[in-house]
């Protein structure tokens, strides 16, 4: 058991709070998908310690926090997390900019899945194009998340 076990839950809780944090009117669609970003970082950095179970539970909490269908974000996060764990060795050696592009692509796929599910239950948003603004913010925020979590991980010497 790693003595720094609290680091992953702690970062996930902070991410969940960022998801609920009120933003100024009009900027909500541009909020990055913090929880998925943090999940993806841990999936790439410590795949042997970070599994689908934690990813799924974080997704479930996002569902509750957002008032979405139970399981909607959980499904999306588990899917992108599984891909990231499968490809973690390739992703790890990429430069951060390239990682950002790949992660953005993953999140675009996830957002499309979310849109599809919302549409099936009759909750599709009016402005579909704005819906994809959030994954595109990953291009800017992935390097930030990456640098921050890498420093944390090194400071607390987690795996």
């Amino acid at each position, binding site marked *: 058991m790693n003595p720094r076990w609290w680091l992953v839950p702690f970062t996930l809780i902070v991410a969940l709070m960022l998801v609920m944090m009120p933003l100024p009117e009009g900027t909500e669609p541009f909020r990055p998908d913090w929880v998925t970003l943090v999940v993806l970082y841990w999936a790439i950095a410590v795949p042997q310690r970070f*599994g689908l179970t934690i990813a799924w539970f974080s997704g479930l909490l996002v569902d509750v926090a957002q008032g979405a269908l*139970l399981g909607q974000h959980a499904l999306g996060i588990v899917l992108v997390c599984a891909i990231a764990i499968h490809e973690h060795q390739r992703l790890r050696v990429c430069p951060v900019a390239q990682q950002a592009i790949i992660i953005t692509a993953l999140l675009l796929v996830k957002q499309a899945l979310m849109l599809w599910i919302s549409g099936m239950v009759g909750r599709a948003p009016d402005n579909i194009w704005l819906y994809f603004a959030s994954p595109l913010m990953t291009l800017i925020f992935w390097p930030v998340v990456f640098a921050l979590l890498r420093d944390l991980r090194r400071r607390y010497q987690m795996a």
Partner: protein
Amino acid sequence: MQPLFQQGTGPSARVAFFIVLSISLMVWDQRAQHLEAVRGFLTGAIAPLQYAVNVPAELLGWTSQRVMSRGDLIGEVNELQRENLRLRARQQKFETLQSENDRLRELLDSSSKRDERVLVAELLSVDLDPYRQQVVLNHGTRDGVYRGQPVIDAYGVMGQIIHTGPFTATALLISDPNHALPVQINRNGLRTIASGTGEPDSLELLYIPNNADVRVGDFVVTSGLGGRFPPNYPVATVVHVERRPGQPFARVIAEPKAQLDRSREVLLVWPDNGEPAAAEQDAGRAAGADDTGESAGSASGTRQETPR
């Protein structure tokens, strides 16, 4: 170190397991209500986070209250005193009318209506899905809040509770595209349905024939037909009527009375909808929670806003 050979279930089997789990959860959540308990439990788990996220907004409000100038405060107190006087005057008239109404009802031998109970709740500054119109309130099942409960503000109907946790509850606003509210035009009793459009300042009144008597400025109140909202609460004012000869129904747009995107404080209502057992139970629970000094009079006061 990562083991060279995978043990136990393979990764693809686990992914498949979680996919199936998520999909069955979604189907279950969409089709049945059993998962509300699970959602309630998880809502209770994240409630501390919601309150923590709310702290900066709370602090901001507190600070701005502290640094308010004396002149502003005096002005506000004067304004409130005038408002109080006005409301008291109206309340006197209302009480006379109420007793007269009770007497007439007794003469008619019809069941007299009890007043609704209310509880003041505050909105938490917590963001939800930006594509749906929802708000989080700072009261939950511990205060007797239940699913489907009406939420109003000082000006009109705001929405209804859709999810409850122990300490918080989520309300769907009437402006959400998935929300429909049975209403009637106050002037002539024409019944219709007010459906949200996704914009906080417009509702659409559905199924109004082209030749129906609807005018701009008409006042729309709840009809109480759905059994969920008490009747005669103000909902909206008609702002646009478009009669379309080629279509079976006219397009009628109304503006909500409630300040859907501005209110910080709302009222939770325990309606008296003629179901003795349920009402009794709700009232009992409400009475326990009703320590905010709110009496039934406030609900009636709001109802009194309805112009005759």
